[in-house]
């Protein structure tokens, strides 16, 4: 009989449902990006009120909280995009048998790597130096 180790149990049960985790990530990041888009369009809309109104709106985004949210936005975009690529590949019948590995490697691994490469300089430049 195969020994019952934590690794075996994790492999047998939890890992199998990574597709659902990916689905939830895609929905949550999608909704958050939609909220961001509304905010973005609203800010751009300030242009119609003249340059002073637009500058005033932009001032709000210069405080450290919004700088951090900007880095969060970067994370959302990367996660949503790479998970979307994973879904497109599966829709095309590519990598279907390895969808769990695809999720961990592409949607989490590569996304995390790209995020760190982009977020660290952004954090130094926009949060620490501001």
């Amino acid at each position, binding site marked *: *009989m195969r020994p*019952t180790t*934590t690794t*075996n*149990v994790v492999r*047998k*049960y939890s890992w*199998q*449902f*990574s*597709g*659902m985790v990916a*689905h939830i990530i895609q929905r949550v990041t999608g909704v958050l990006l939609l909220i961001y888009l509304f905010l973005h369009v609203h800010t751009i809309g300030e242009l119609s009120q003249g340059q002073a109104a637009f500058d005033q709106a932009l001032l709000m985004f210069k405080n450290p909280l919004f700088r951090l949210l900007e880095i969060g936005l970067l994370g959302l975009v990367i996660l949503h995009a790479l998970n979307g690529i994973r*879904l497109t590949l*599966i*829709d*095309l*019948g590519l990598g*279907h*048998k390895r*969808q769990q590995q695809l999720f961990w490697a592409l949607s989490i691994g590569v996304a995390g790597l790209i995020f760190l490469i982009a977020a660290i300089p952004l954090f130094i430049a926009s949060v620490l130096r501001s």
Partner: protein
Amino acid sequence: MKSYQVKIARSSADGGITRIGTFQVALEERMTVLDALFNIQRTQDDSLSFRCACRVGMCGTCAMYINSVPRLACKTQVSQLDTETVTIAPLPNLPVIKDLVVSLEPFFKQWKKIKPALHSPNRDATEPAKIPATSRYARETPQKRDCITCGICYGACGIKSTNEEYLGPAAINKAFLRLMDPRDTATEERLDVLNEERGGVWRCHTQFNCTAACPKKIDLTDTIMRLKRSMLFPSGFKKA
């Protein structure tokens, strides 16, 4: 022997879950969740209701929601769950009759929609139909034919929980098998059902829950994705 705490969703006469029954059972290492249920029924509470038949994972009768995952009770060893508390509830997405017994009526209602029976033009043929081992059906469907209609994929499906009209993975898999079957001729009727806006294959959001939960390891999401791709091309299921 190891002692486990077993929490079981108990229902009222009308099927609604009203309380959680907590039991303490001692089990040998290789004993299953079904063994635990029998132990509880015999020694602690003979009013506990659950269903089982073959006890070897062939009939699919003992499908239930064990530690938040739909599984066959007879094939789930308690020690493999790696927890001292086992939570058992009836299969989701199906109406509860009593305790862990659910009605499979909605499941088979969807199943019937895709015309599961063979529709052959040669109904009076006396010779058995020959399916060459080289045919697509023989090559590509062996594992997909293992479905035991346990309803686990139906209970695991996230789309099914929010969309009553959705056919569910098992029915779609059956339709796929019939579409691939060289003896069958009801291709158009099945494609019409599979193409329905609310209930058809396009509702699947590729969550892979059905594939992950299937006790027979049928790649149900693969079936659905293949159907989606084939349905985009009119000749996708032309009989050879």
